[in-house]
């Protein structure tokens, strides 16, 4: 595999202000994404996992500049995305697309499939005339496995799986190189998930796409990703090659996450690490290592010093004091 970096994230931060008081002044920040760095290579799939509220979706949206980053650097094919002006950004959007979680909310209910898929073509002027546009739409729909007979229909006439295909088709219409898939299958029925996962994999091959695959379901992430990044409370705790991460998770959080997954095999018995308590609020995250209140191996230093996020060999990044001591 050639290690050409398509996307490089450096020290990305996204804070949301918390306003309170009589004058609605900003009194605190929700540190949804707090200083994360990673990269995605061309043609690979990077899985980004974490529990709800850990900032993974925010990270995805911030990379696309659907949300304005608070700080950091996002380099995409050599351009720093954060420095683009509105017009340049609009141009750049052809290269990066997003697929959403909720197939019901992500399609405009008042537009026909042809219009939904045709919209990116209209916006970027990718078709010279109506005929060409329709041909292109037909072609894309065909690619995602939808027949042309659906073109004049509205989203609510479709099942969840078909809708997700429409969402994929829309993303594909501009012929992007990067697709951020934000929990693309978690709202789908079990029997449909596989269809969409297979489709995504096929498309990746056919169009040499790069994916940032955001999900909370580790089994899906494991299935589809080349590398996996684990987030906890706005921070990356571990990033590694898929095999390495699942065989040899270094961070205690990754370990407990892996052990918490129920396995569809009644004979399989795992030594489950049950974490105590809930994920703390990102407004006022714990000091030091953010995982320390729930960490079964927490030490004194963990509550005081934030562990460094660093490479523990062969691109296996992690942030944990345990590892440093070893």
């Amino acid at each position, binding site marked *: 595999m050639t290690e050409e970096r398509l996307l490089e994230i450096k020290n990305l931060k996204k804070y949301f202000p918390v306003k*309170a*008081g*009589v*004058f*609605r002044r900003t009194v605190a920040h929700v540190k949804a994404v707090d200083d994360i760095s990673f990269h995605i290579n061309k043609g690979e799939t990077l899985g980004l996992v974490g529990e709800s509220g850990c900032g993974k979706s925010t990270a995805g949206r911030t990379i696309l500049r659907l949300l304005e980053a608070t700080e950091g650097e996002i380099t995409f094919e050599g351009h720093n995305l954060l420095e683009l002006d509105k017009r340049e950004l609009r141009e750049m959007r052809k290269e990066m697309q997003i697929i959403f979680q909720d197939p019901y909310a992500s399609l405009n209910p008042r537009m026909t499939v042809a219009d939904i898929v045709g919209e990116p073509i209209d916006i970027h002027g990718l078709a010279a005339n109506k005929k060409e546009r329709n041909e292109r739409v037909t072609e894309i729909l065909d690619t995602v496995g939808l027949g042309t007979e659906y073109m004049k229909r509205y989203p609510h006439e479709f099942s969840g799986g078909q809708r997700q295909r429409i969402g994929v088709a829309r993303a594909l219409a501009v012929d992007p190189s990067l697709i951020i898939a934000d929990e693309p299958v978690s709202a789908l029925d079990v029997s449909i998930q596989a269809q969409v996962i297979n489709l995504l994999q096929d498309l990746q091959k056919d169009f040499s796409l790069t994916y940032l695959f955001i999900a909370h379901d580790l089994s899906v992430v494991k299935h589809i990703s080349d590398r996996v990044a684990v987030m906890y409370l706005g921070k990356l705790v571990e990033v590694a090659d898929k095999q390495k991460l699942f065989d040899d998770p270094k961070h205690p959080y990754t370990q407990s996450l892996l052990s918490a997954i129920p396995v569809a095999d009644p004979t399989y018995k795992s030594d489950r690490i049950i974490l105590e308590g809930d994920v703390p609020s990102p407004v006022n995250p714990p000091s030091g290592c953010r995982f320390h209140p729930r960490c079964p191996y927490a030490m004194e230093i963990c509550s005081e010093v934030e562990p460094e996020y660093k490479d523990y060999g062969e691109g296996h990044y992690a942030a944990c004091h345990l590892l440093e001591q070893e």
Partner: protein
Amino acid sequence: MINYIIRRLLILPVILFGVSVLVFAMLMLVGPYQRLSTYIKSPAELKTANLDSLVEKYGLNDPFHQQYGRWISGVLKGDFGWSETAGATVTEAVLQRFPATLELALLALIPVIMGGINLGVFSAVHHNDPWDHVTRVFSIVGWSIPTFVFGLVVLMIFYGVLGWFPPGRLSVWASDIIRSSEFVQYTHLNIIDGLLNANLKVVGDAIRHLVAPVFSISILWWAYILRITRSSMLETLRKDYIRTARSKGVKERVVVKKHARKNALIPVVTVAGHMVLGLLGGLVITETIFGYQGLGQFFASAASQLDYAAVLGLALYFGFLLILINLCVDVSYAIIDPRIRLE
């Protein structure tokens, strides 16, 4: 929540300022001589009235900011000016009429809110039953009848034919009583004063005069509240926590009254705020028809006579009232909904 209320209170002067500028600007569309006619009642007065000196005297030809400044500096000192329509200072006129309107509005609101909510709940619980259809038809038809038609019909039937509910605020004999020295007017609300003085005849007479206007003004809002409550209730009855309550073995009556109604009231509270707004408008018509001397009638006549001190004063007063009502709405939200209260 408290912060929010403080914020609202801080914004109050801004809104009131805006309202006063808006109304003032509207009034300035009228030429100075035309505005002067407030002071001239008949052609006979034209003979000796020196129009130009009057314009001069009242400063009607001055630029906007000067006239406004003059007025607002008076207001800041508590002087809202003289109302020709009322023949009193605006403050006096408003204070004098406020109890009447308050009494009417309160009596109109209480049955509306209580009755409308209960009917709405009833209608929602009996969704698609004949009773539901009857109340729905009532609500749509009730909402479609103009107040002035309805008021006239009510007057015709209940006073003209039956002689039950006379117009005005009190009968002459009753007003003799309340003006007598034994009778203490604590609140100027006749019903309450009557009760406090243990004079049931006055109470009875006051109520007798209030029934018809209350009835004709509230029919519209009954229909409205009913409708909102119904749909809100229908929505609430489909909520998961209703299912939870049922799954605990809670009686259906309790499910409706305890679990559903309180939640369903949250949107109704907003509407109740709107309702008060509309009610104030409706008072203009109702008070006119029933010869009930309150703020609504005052506003109508002040407006039609271009009595600008009164119009401005009343506009500010209404604005103030409305903002207070909105605050009340917000507070009642908080009472009902802990999510807001504990914010």
